[in-house]
Every structure is written in structure tokens, then in C-alpha cells.
């Protein structure tokens, strides 16, 4: 870990450098904004996003920047507060004159920030929001480099049913988390019905709250209903509590959930419990551009103070990396100038490029966007057991035959 003193000197040096650079090549920078939660309960995600973006910025500039101009990524912390995310977007778009914004991360923040993006006519693309319909409600400037959970579940649930011979499930969800609650009360129940799986607690939805330590009562209740499997809709940091309790009570049943479950941390909670969840990226995935990305980013993450020593790149790091890469490509190919007088035109160019985006080379395969502003990209139904994720089904968030698949 860096000592704080070291860190300050680095910051100072960076600041001096920045001033020097800004002084000499003022007109030749293209600014891209990012909104990440570097403090608050999701600090780790925001901080690893920050490292990822710094890495990307260097990569792009080393490779010659954007049509000769330097790329500058301006990263703002929203403290996991929706209001701060929205005002950050205003700062980025209004004061910092960025051509596009990556983020915000959570659906709650996206709900508040996307309308501002529309108002200010600048692209905002979330790296993690997967609550249904958030970008759709805020067209044309809102995008998400994620796949709507209702699409993912269509592949996840049949695999889950087939593999574990599931006829009945119990559903438990985090009632305080908007995404998890939507998945737990709407998407998953509908999906279970479509697949002919009975929900044993259909009339009695089991929930807990973000931050709850004790879910023993909920787990005991599920156990007494004796389902074949468990639908666990929660962010992984909360899901850990449930999995631990299931293990403690000897309630070893296959678990299915949404993208929120994907992380390496969750695999440590109860290695003997099989977990099925969809993802567009995971640190140990092979093939394509993913492996070099992980190889480059992981050591940088682990060096960073304020992040745990054994951290791995997350799906959100991959997503935000892709988002800014897309912006860079858009800027290059559609002739973004980065000049103040062209700002409005530049922003429109980026948006139009994204709308027509064709086979952008994402870390996990080609990416484009659907009419809802959500990503069409490859995804994987993963099964986690004994400490590792393995790909079981490969899918794509579009009609078959789309080039992205």
C-alpha cells in the first residue's frame, strides 16, 4: 500500500503536470467524464473503476490519443448518492465540457442522472444499472452497457431448471435495493411461471434489507418450505449474508440470481452451494480481449491504496472500460474536434455513433445497442461452485442472428 505522503506527492505531481499540459496543448484535448462511487458503500467499485479509467486514458494517449488530441478522463465521485451523481453530470457536461459521460453506476443514481443527460444533451452510459427500463425511460441520451435483467433471466432460468431439475423454488430478495426488489418481485416470479417452476412462497415474498446481518429467520422459513432451489435477488455483498446463513443451517440448494450476484467474493461465502447467475464479464474468463485486460488491470488494482490486496477486476470495470473505449472510437471515427464551439455537435456525433454502433470490439465480444439504449452483447450463464465461475451457456441479448451474437 502507498503511504499517504507518497500519494500526496503523486497527486501534486499530477496536478503540476496537468497544468503544464493544459497550458501547452490546451485546444488539443478531448474530455470524457465519468461518475463513479468512490466513497460510500460501493466505494470499492468506484475506486477500481477509477484505476481502470486511468489505465485506459494512458493506453489511449500512448497510442496517439484521439485524432492527435489528448484524451482526458475527468472522474467524479458521487458518494453513492443519486443527487450527487446528477450534479456531477451537470458539472461534467456544463463546466468541464466533456463530450460524453460514463456512469453513474447504480440504478438509483441512473434514474436521477439520465433525465439530466437528456436535458443537457450529452450521452450518459451506466456501467452497472440493470433495473428494467431505466435507459428506455430516458431516451435518446441514456445508454447502459448492461443487459436488462429480464432478458438475462430468460437464459439463466431454463439452464438452472434443467441442470438441477428444479420444480419448486423459494424467492428471497433485498427489499431496499431497487434493482434487487424489481428482480425479486417481478422478473423472477414471471420467469418461473414461464418455465413451469412453482414458487413455494408465492404469497409470502421473503425479503431482507440492505445492511441486515441476520437473515436466519428467512432462511429457516425457506428451509421449512423445502424448495428444490432458491432465487436470491440481491447485490453480492448482501447475498453473502444469505449464503452464509444457508450454509450454517445446512440448507444446501442450488441458487439462482441476477448479474448482481457476480463477484469473486460471493464464491467464498459458501463454496459448496452452486450459484447460477448471468454475466457479461468475469475476471477468470478466457478468450478474446478479456484475459489481457485482466492481466494489465489486476496488478494496478492491487497496488492501489484504499482497495483490498486480493481484488480482481469486476464486471463493472470491464463495462466502464468498454464505455470509454466506445466513446474514444466514436470520437475518432466521427471526427470529434474537442473544440468548445463544436461541443454540441461532438456530443450528437457520439450519440449517433453509439446508436449505429456495429460490432464494437468489447472485452467479451461485439457490442451494439438496442432501441432501449441497453447493450446488445454476449453474456454467459455462469455457474459458481468450489471457488470458481465457469461458463455454462453463452447467450446474446438480441434476436438470434444479430452480428453481436
Amino acid at each position, binding site marked *: 500500500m502507498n503511504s499517504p505522503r507518497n500519494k500526496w506527492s503523486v*497527486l501534486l505531481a499530477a496536478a503540476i503536470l496537468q497544468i503544464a499540459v493544459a497550458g501547452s496543448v490546451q485546444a488539443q484535448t478531448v474530455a470524457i467524464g465519468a461518475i463513479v462511487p*468512490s*466513497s*460510500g458503500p460501493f*466505494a470499492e467499485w468506484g*475506486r477500481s473503476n477509477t484505476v481502470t479509467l486511468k489505465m485506459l486514458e494512458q493506453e489511449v494517449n500512448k497510442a496517439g490519443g484521439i485524432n492527435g488530441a489528448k484524451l482526458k478522463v475527468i472522474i*467524479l*465521485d458521487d*458518494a453513492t448518492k*443519486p*443527487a*450527487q451523481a*446528477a*450534479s456531477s453530470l*451537470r*458539472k461534467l*457536461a*456544463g*463546466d468541464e465540457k466533456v463530450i460524453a459521460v460514463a456512469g453513474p453506476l447504480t440504478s*438509483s443514481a441512473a*434514474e*436521477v442522472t439520465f*433525465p*439530466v443527460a437528456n*436535458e*443537457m444533451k450529452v450521452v450518459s452510459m451506466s456501467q452497472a444499472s440493470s*433495473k428494467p427500463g431505466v435507459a428506455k*425511460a430516458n431516451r435518446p441520451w441514456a445508454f447502459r452497457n448492461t443487459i436488462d435483467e429480464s432478458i438475462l433471466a430468460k437464459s439463466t432460468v431454463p439452464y438452472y431448471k434443467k441442470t438441477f431439475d428444479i420444480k419448486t423454488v423459494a424467492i428471497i430478495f433485498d*427489499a*431496499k*435495493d*431497487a434493482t*434487487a*426488489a*424489481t428482480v425479486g*418481485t*417481478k422478473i423472477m416470479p414471471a420467469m418461473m411461471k414461464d418455465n413451469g417452476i412453482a414458487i413455494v412462497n408465492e404469497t409470502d415474498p421473503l425479503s431482507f434489507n440492505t445492511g441486515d446481518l441476520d437473515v436466519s429467520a428467512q432462511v429457516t422459513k425457506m428451509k421449512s418450505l423445502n424448495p428444490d432451489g432458491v432465487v436470491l435477488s440481491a447485490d453480492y455483498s448482501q447475498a453473502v449474508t444469505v449464503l452464509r446463513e444457508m450454509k450454517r443451517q445446512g440448507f444446501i440448494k442450488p441458487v439462482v440470481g441476477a448479474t448482481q450476484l457476480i463477484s469473486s467474493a460471493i464464491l467464498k461465502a459458501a463454496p459448496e452451494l452452486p450459484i447460477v447467475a448471468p454475466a457479461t464479464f468475469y475476471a477468470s474468463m478466457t478468450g478474446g480481449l478479456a484475459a489481457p485486460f485482466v492481466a494489465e488491470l489486476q496488478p494496478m488494482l492491487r497496488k492501489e*491504496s*484504499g482497495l483490498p490486496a486480493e481484488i480482481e477486476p469486476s464486471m463493472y470495470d470491464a463495462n466502464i472500460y468498454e464505455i470509454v473505449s466506445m466513446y474514444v472510437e466514436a470520437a475518432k471515427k466521427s471526427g470529434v474536434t474537442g473544440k468548445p464551439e463544436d461541443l454540441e455537435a461532438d456530443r450528437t456525433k457520439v450519440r449517433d455513433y453509439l446508436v449505429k454502433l456495429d460490432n464494437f470490439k468489447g472485452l467479451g465480444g461485439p457490442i451494439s445497442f438496442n432501441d432501449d439504449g441497453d447493450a446488445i452483447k454476449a453474456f454467459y450463464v455462469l455457474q459458481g461452485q468450489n471457488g470458481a465461475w465457469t461458463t455454462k451457456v453463452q447467450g446474446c441479448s438480441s434476436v438470434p442472428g444479430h452480428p453481436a451474437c
Partner: protein
Amino acid sequence: MSTYTASLLADVGILTLGALSVYVILATGQLSLGNAGFMAIGAYLASYLTVVAGVPLTSALVIAALCSGIIGVMIGFPALRLKGIFLAMATLGFGEMIRSLFLNLEITGGAGGFHGMAHVSVTYVWIWVGLILVLVWLMESSRAWLEMRAVADDETAANLIGLNTTMTKIGAFGMSAAVAAVSGGLFAHHHVYIEPGNFGFERSIDFVLAVILGGSTIGAGSLVGAALLVLLPEQLRALDDWRPAAFGALLIIVLLIRRQGILDRSLLRRFTFRKQAA
């Protein structure tokens, strides 16, 4: 003015109203740790009225304020049997109950939140803030306000010299609930999306914090406190990972240096006297 500054100002305005709602109760010597509950009522009710029932925003805010005020009065009757920290506890419980209620209320979207509101400008927010600030400022030199201060200073004596202290406290509670509801309605229509998580204990504490930092003896203190709470974190961005800690430390320092808040009555009196002398 950049739109970023404008949105911060809108946040200052919304927090000012929340702080004023606590200020009004604090003027009677009581602490509320649950005003986010009233804010939630105002936010959801006003939003429901504009989005589903098509009521114009201003009318919706007035209706929300009235309803919340009535709820405040109804809750005030039993709650005001309690005093001091016990009342604070009860209000804390009330706030959590309201949050839990909206988490389960399907017609307002439950945990999924509620949207569809039309965005309001910072000007509209500040028209309300200005209006209520002026109203509070006028009230501060009224007999009703003196009665509230009398209750705060010595409730028994106030009662014995002929003040209906129960009505005073309930009135303050109702007014507080109404102001918090306006704050909520404006919050909902400024951010155009609300969810129960917006109205937790943390929000209630923010209100109290704004009042105490700004000064709890005059209404303008709420404005100063709210401005500090919204703008300070923005100024601390350079600190990166230590931003919250720096904020916490500054908070403690301000409390230690000016426990009566940044503004107080004697400070104001000194200024007005100087004016008279000049």
C-alpha cells in the same frame, strides 16, 4: 450560472426547507429525528398528484403540505406527551415506519421507486424556499413564535401564565410536517425520481445537522447550514478517498468552535444595532 451550480443551489434550497422543518420544532425545544418521513409523504403525494392525477405542481405541493400537516397534527397529539430525547426516539421510529410503508406501497412503485415527474427549475424551487423563508422570518417576530420559544424555555411556566402549550407544540409539529412535505415535493420534482431509500434516517439527520451547524435560533441559520452541507463535500473533492472523513472532521470542528451555530440571535442583534447606530 452553470447548470451544475444551479442544481447545487436547488439542493441547497430543498435541504433548507427540510432544515426549516426541523427548526420550527426545535423552536419549541423539541428534536425531531424523523422529518424525512414527512418529506417522503410530501414527495410521494405531490408526485402521485402530478403524475397520475394530473394536478398542476403548485396545487399538488399545497395539497401535499396540507395533508402532511394534518398527519403531523394527528401524530403530534399522542407524540407530544413525550419530551426531549424520548420524543426524538419516537420521531425516529416514525420516520423508519414511513420509509418501510413506502417500501411496500405498490401504487407508488414500492422499492422500485416512482418516476414520471416533470423537472422543475432551480428558480421554481427558490420561489418556494424564499416564500417559506420569508414566512418563517415574519413569524419569528410574531407572538406565536414567542409562545413557541416560551415552551422551549420553560414549558410549565408558559402553561401557568396562560399559554396553551399543547396547541403551540402541535401547531409547530403540523407546520414542520407541512414544510418538510414541500421540501419532499420539490425534491421529487427536481430529481424526477424518488425511492424510499431517499427518505431514511440519514436524511432526517441531515436536516438536524443543517439547523445546528447554521444556527438554531434564527431561520436564516437553516439556509447557511444547508449551503454548508451541500457545498462543502463539493469543495473537498480533491481529497479523493478521504473526502467523507474530512467532512466529518470539519463537522466536528465547526461544532466545537461555534456550538450555537454559525448564525445566532446575538450575532444578528449586534449587526442590527450597528445599523441603528450608524
